[in-house]
């Protein structure tokens, strides 16, 4: 049962957080900082506490706030408020880093400079809405480091830009990418094949549904996204060898579960094996082509998806 909040005690804690953040140096008052904390508490504790931040005890709030990057939060919010000293500090700390981050993401000097400058403009709040300068830094909540947040925001910006540019890919560029060599959609299968395919999909879905979120994330990252073991390991905070062993275990377990599922649906072991292997051969080329479109599923206009249309056209 949550304990009632103690006003006096809460004020002391808020004052302690304020002092720890160094917000005073950037001209942020205690009330302003408390309002920022309340906003953050409302956003995150409301989701985690049955949509009622009021039910969260003062202790929970204090613990949550203690886990925030208060100093960086104060800096970001002071920058968003237009504090000169805060901007000086921000530029001194992150301006150069922004270019490094952009270069790491884009792997291209020109694009990196463009991306970094664009993000810096967004952070400063060049674009005004309703006459009010809006800085992206106002969305920083201190859950992670400010540097990490900047990287994440930059990655999102890069993806958005990439997609925008992809929509305007010329036919020549598509030809260069080998669009004309994409595999045609296989012929419509017969009734027995469709049944077999449905059973296989159901067994696979069932086997995938049994996986934990982390296992599924690992599978998708490695097999779908083509991430390296090192990247997955860094994301999950594990060692590469752990990820490698997990992937081996998952691949082996999935095959067994799918076969077992097919057997449960009335297929013999030989039939199940045949369905699994046949599907592998059938899907091979198609899957490869579809995986290459993975990040650009909406890159091409609907009428210009060549693989399906070309395949259909050839049979018409």
């Amino acid at each position, binding site marked *: 049962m949550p304990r009632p909040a103690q006003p006096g005690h809460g004020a002391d804690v808020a004052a302690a957080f304020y002092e720890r953040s160094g917000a005073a140096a950037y001209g942020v008052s205690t009330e302003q900082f408390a309002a920022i904390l309340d906003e953050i508490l409302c956003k995150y504790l409301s989701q985690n506490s049955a949509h009622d931040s009021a039910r969260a005890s003062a202790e929970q709030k204090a613990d949550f706030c203690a886990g925030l990057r208060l100093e960086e939060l104060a800096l970001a919010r002071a920058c968003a408020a237009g504090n000169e000293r805060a901007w000086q500090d921000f530029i001194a700390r992150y301006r150069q880093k922004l270019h490094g981050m952009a270069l790491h993401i884009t792997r291209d000097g020109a694009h990196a400079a463009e991306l970094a400058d664009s993000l810096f403009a967004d952070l400063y709040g060049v674009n005004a809405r309703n006459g009010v300068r809006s800085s992206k830094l106002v969305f920083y909540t201190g859950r992670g480091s400010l540097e990490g*947040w900047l990287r994440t*925001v930059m990655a999102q910006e890069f993806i958005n830009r990439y997609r925008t540019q992809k929509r305007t890919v010329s036919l020549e560029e598509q030809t260069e990418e080998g669009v004309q060599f994409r595999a045609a959609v296989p012929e419509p299968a017969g009734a027995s094949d469709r049944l077999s395919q449905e059973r296989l*999909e159901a067994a696979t879905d069932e086997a995938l549904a049994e996986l934990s979120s*982390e296992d599924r994330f690992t599978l998708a990252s490695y*097999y779908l996204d083509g991430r390296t073991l090192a990247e997955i390991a860094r994301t999950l*905070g594990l060692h590469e060898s752990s990820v490698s062993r997990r992937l081996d275990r998952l691949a082996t377990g*999935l095959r067994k579960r799918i076969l077992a599922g097919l057997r449960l649906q009335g297929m013999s072991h030989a039939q199940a094996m045949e369905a699994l292997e046949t599907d592998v051969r059938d899907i091979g080329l198609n899957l490869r082509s579809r*995986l290459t479109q993975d990040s650009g599923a909406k890159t091409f206009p609907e009428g210009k998806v060549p693989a399906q249309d070309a395949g259909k056209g050839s049979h018409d």
Partner: protein
Amino acid sequence: MTEVPKIVYDRLRAARPERALPDRALPERAGPERTHPDADLLTAFAEQALAATERDGVLEHLAFCGDCREVIALALPAADIVAAPIATETAVRATPVPAKSERNFLTAFAWPSLRWAALAAGVAVVASVLLVHPGKLNQATLPSVNRQVATTAPPVSAPQIAPSSTDQAAISARTSEARPKSESRLSKKLNAGEAVTPPPRAERGMLLAENKNHSGQADKLSAAPSAGVLFDAPTSPRTTETVEVSGAAAAEEVAPSAEDSLMAWNETPAIEKAKPALQEKEMKVNEQQKTQAAVVPGLARSQARAMMSSAKLASPASPALAHNVTWVIIAGVLQRSVDSGQSWQNVLRTDHPLLCYASHEEDVWAGGQAGTLFHSADGGTTWVQVQPSIKAQQLSSDVTHIDVRGDVRGDERGPAEIAISTSNNGIWSSADGGKTWEKK
């Protein structure tokens, strides 16, 4: 990496939420199961700063959302590529990201670092075993050899002198006490190790130390000559002396000279020290030995010969006492007394039992089975094996008798004439002190 069935690719991709990527900088406010986590949550997730429940929620979304997985992958810091976080799954989930120093500390003990340490430790262990163990082996084999010798040598006189064994042991013990400790141990150990291949002098002390436990057997063996007393007459107390001399004889095998001569240590002074104190007791013992040996002479002789089978030779003597020297062969061993039979010493022990001897002044010849023939020109101090031969024939039969005649020409002493009778009635003779031989 193990491949998954292609259907898995298909179904993983088919399960993706078909949503356009919103403005990621803006936090999602409603419908968490249908929205993307904001940049703060993704950052906190990538930095392992989320609580377990929040982390699971983000993971659940990431398992289905390729867009967010891509954002996280792109947002991974470049520096982390080099220094990947190393931690166990449980540790990561239970605790927030440790401080940098703590992380470095953890990575220092992670398996990639430890495996080299483990390899180095393994090499060190193997090296130490290889370096240390052979030394231990050498030390361990020495006593084992001695034990073997001690056990292979039959307890010759023990059965015959059983009634007096207690007294004899006491005598040996008291004798040992009477002499210097080092001499006592030397004699006992060497007596027990008669057939041991010659150890280097540096190891002799170690040999002695290792043989402490066998001193009792050595004492028993020392009674062997006394058991054979009845065959070759002299019945003087010689128990203690036998121990000394035989030990010295075995020790002498250690240092073979270039001339194939075999030197012996003269232990006489030590023997002399012990003698007065033991004389009365030893007399009683010898009387008992004589009685015992007379009962079973054949057995005693065979056992004595067996004891000689693995033995070599030795000899101590003082040339100054040559005029008092008395020789006798007991149990195939040539013994010498330099005090008119008061005490006796083994001076020559060979592979084959000696059967006869002859002496002329300091020239001593001893012959035995299988053509064994030894010559000492210094009263038994050093011995040289002589192999009589003519053309392609060598002396191989038992030497049953030796006759030596000195050739004295004025003040000079010339080479002796030697005549040897063999068991097959052959006679070998040499007129030049054994350099050339004739067979008759």
